[in-house]
């Protein structure tokens, strides 16, 4: 992407005031998106994100600058600015970069932007027709078809020089059911770290129908009750509970500052005995996967919690310097506009051996959350919330009538200990996770789990 001679000059310049470490990140990204609603292709946009970020460390201080101008002059100016923001010790000069080829573990068969627009629109139309055809209460279908091809180059003062090419494909469908006075929504957003072959692998009719089914079910549902209940949260996006209740608090971004409920808990029991949780960037073509992180390190499979015991945080380079724990290839960023930070990849609770039906049968009155919406957490307090997208009452050990979306709240340290059963149907779902280094693709996942008690924010 850039001449090695220029990269070396920029890194040398960034180090010239005695910085401990310098890094250059260059990005050239092609985005394409189609927005469809009202039975029509409404908006069509393509674009080019292009820029570079220079980062230096002085001790535990990180300095970052970015620019859209990739000329030698502009990059040296950015490097000069970051170098002068602090004063270091001995100056290391003339770094020697060695271009390293990375192993591509995520094969792309049909690269993004090589398929005709018409084919994409045909796919979208099939989703739209399937949703509208499901039930005459479907009043609107919104579909967003997104492709992204991100080419990155990362070089640093330790001699690293790597490039990678990342293909992302995702379609987001939101169906609205209406009975004249009320409206409810059903949404699905499948995506992969892959090319167009992903769209060929999904059935647009099933996708459309599924969103319509949830919207119509929720339209004809009553409100959820209020109070404390046992809850069974099913697989897929249900994994958002671990993501919010625990995941963010295991990122060194929070841990290094002491602003996490899991500080000082390494090697200690923090969860139910049978709970094992993993953050894995190596799963082939999964939405949160990568070959290398945004600091140029090979991504890894990181066991966070094993049988209830805290085994690892998610650690980026600065997090490693601050906490002393080894890096886990977790340094991620939305784009060159952000300095990297420790972030989740594909994060999931591993399969247990409890039977799903026995879980339901163990509850007299509770909630079954078939699908979850999003959520959020304050890592410092551990207080989290997430919302139910498709819910049902559990009565006398059986799944009963549907109930409308309610928010569940709890405290991370607490909720992990209140998990009492883990099933064996692990599945993942795709999301965009927002934090200090921007919005990055992440998978959440889990088998069905039972939580003995959680606050349900219903209206009855």
């Amino acid at each position, binding site marked *: 992407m850039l001449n090695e001679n220029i990269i070396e000059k920029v890194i040398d310049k960034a180090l010239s005031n005695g910085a401990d470490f310098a890094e250059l990140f260059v990005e*050239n990204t092609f*985005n394409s998106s*189609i927005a469809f609603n*009202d039975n*029509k*292709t*409404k*908006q*069509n*946009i*393509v*674009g*080019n994100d292009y*820029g570079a970020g220079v980062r230096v460390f002085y001790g*535990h*201080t*990180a*300095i*970052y*600058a970015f*620019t*859209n*101008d990739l000329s030698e002059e502009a990059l040296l100016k*950015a490097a000069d600015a970051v170098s002068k923001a602090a004063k270091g010790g001995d100056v290391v000069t003339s770094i020697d970069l060695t271009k390293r080829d990375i192993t591509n573990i995520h094969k792309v068969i049909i690269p993004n932007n090589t398929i005709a*627009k018409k084919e994409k629109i045909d796919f979208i139309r099939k989703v739209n027709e399937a949703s509208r055809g499901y039930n005459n209460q479907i*009043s*609107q279908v*919104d579909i967003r078809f997104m492709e992204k091809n991100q080419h990155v180059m990362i070089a640093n003062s330790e001699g690293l020089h790597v490039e990678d090419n990342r293909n992302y494909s995702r379609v987001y469908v939101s169906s*609205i059911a*209406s009975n004249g006075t*009320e*409206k*409810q929504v059903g949404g699905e957003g499948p995506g992969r770290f892959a090319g167009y072959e992903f769209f060929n692998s999904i059935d647009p009719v099933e996708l459309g129908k599924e969103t319509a089914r949830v919207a119509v079910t929720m339209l004809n549902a009553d409100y959820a009750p*209020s*109070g404390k209940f046992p809850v069974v949260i099913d697989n897929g996006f249900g994994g958002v509970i671990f993501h919010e209740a625990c995941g963010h608090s295991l990122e060194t971004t*929070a841990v290094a500052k002491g*602003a996490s*409920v899991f500080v000082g808990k390494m090697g200690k029991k923090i969860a139910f005995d049978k709970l094992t949780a993993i953050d894995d960037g190596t799963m082939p073509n999964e939405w949160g996967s990568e070959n290398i992180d945004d600091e140029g390190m090979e991504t890894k499979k990181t066991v966070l919690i094993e049988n209830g015991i805290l085994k690892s945080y998610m650690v980026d380079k600065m997090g490693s310097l601050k906490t002393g724990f080894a890096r886990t290839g977790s340094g991620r960023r939305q784009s060159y*506009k952000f*300095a990297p930070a420790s972030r989740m990849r594909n994060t999931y609770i591993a399969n247990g051996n409890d039977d799903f039906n026995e879980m339901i049968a163990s509850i007299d009155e509770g909630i079954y959350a078939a699908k979850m*919406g*999003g*959520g*959020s957490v*304050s890592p*410092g*307090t*551990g*207080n989290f919330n*997430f*919302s139910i997208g498709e819910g049902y009452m559990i009565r006398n050990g059986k799944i009963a009538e549907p109930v409308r*979306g309610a*928010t569940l*709240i709890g*405290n991370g340290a607490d909720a992990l200990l209140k998990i009492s059963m883990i099933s064996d149907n692990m599945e993942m779902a795709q999301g965009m996770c927002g934090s200090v280094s921007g919005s990055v693709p992440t998978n959440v996942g889990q088998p069905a789990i039972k939580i003995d008690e959680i*606050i*349900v*924010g*219903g*209206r009855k």
Partner: protein
Amino acid sequence: MEENKGGAEMYSKEFETIFAYAKDKTDDIEILLSAGNSFSVKINEQNVESFNYADSKGIGVRIITGGKVGYAYTEKFDEETFKRIVDEAIENAKYTEDDDLVIMENYPENKDCPNVYSKELDKVDVSDKIQLAKDLEKYAKQADERVFNVPYAMYADGKSYSRIANSKGLDREDTQNYAYSYVGVLSAEKDDKRMGMDFLITRDFSKFDPKKMAEVSVKKSTDLLNGLPVNSGKYPVVFNNEMMATMLATFSSIFNAKSVQEGRSLLKGKIGQKIADEKVTIVDDSLHPEGFSTSAFDSEGYPTEKTVLIEKGILKTYLHNTITARKDGVRSTGNAARGYKGTLGISTSNFMIEAGEHKEADLFNKHDSIIEIVSLQGMHSGANAISGDFSLGAQGFLWENGKRKHSLKPFTVSGNFLQMLSDVEAIADNFNFDISSNGASSVLIKELNISG
């Protein structure tokens, strides 16, 4: 970002290149450019945790060909790329099926826009900015021994330039700057941990008072300690001014004419109807001198204005761009919104519920038992702007007979936004804008569901 020399438009060469190339290929073209620089510093344990400098620019085109619209953008600035984005936008237009009539015009200019740029702010020394952030952390730690961590102590500022021009001769530009700072503290007592935050956004650096901001955030955090569980049920609820602004912003899309026309808003067909209590007046004002979403023109270059959306409970209008306005047979309200990377939509600017006449304390005298909400979580997941339903994580206090009795353990609040607007019992006079230019006073709602 280039220096603005004597009011002459910046990036003229880029605009000329694109216009010249597009002239014979498109019916009309609009070019939107954003450029800016920004700075931020974060402090941890009295050391600089991070410095960020940004220098960014991007250009987006919206073209009309054969009555169809196409978009493309780039952050790479060279002649070849500029020509490519015009061609890509034309290609994109071929696949657009929207039958809305889209017209570009040379709209009249708004002459009276409040000043949104401070030369003085650009001159503030970096060392003063760092000191401010350090002081935030220092004072926060000193303020109360229950504070165990200050995860956020930061200062940021920036300057942005935008220019929009179209092939009908419209050409507008705008330069703005801003500075903001926030501090977030964690305090603990027994098992209860709480976060408190305070912020200020301004163009006058002398307005930052780190001691006061630190003390406010610490008080917000420590007041919440030792929370007791709430009994689930229905309660009268007071949203403080900050949380009322958050609620308003979360449901702002119900006023968006595009959402209305596409069947995604609860307000469809309700113009002229009473949809809220008569104490409620909701306004969007792009020309508000104290807002930070102030601009004389919108993303189509259309002149902005103060728009009354709900007047004494009656729905008066939706927020429009020229496309939705043409469809409804009304005038645009100047709320077209688009970044160079995006497509044309509609958004609020300085968006607010007008202040009432009550002192905030009076609100708590209106019922024996009231729940005060001072913090909300999960707005992006627990609130559904299409149905109006919300179920949110919340923190706050129980009031009895006009006295704040005690803090509550985290609970949920749920209801429906439109119902809530009809159930407004009293509005206080403590109007304030939040950091995103949504403004409100504290508001008493007759009844909402609380679960804990």
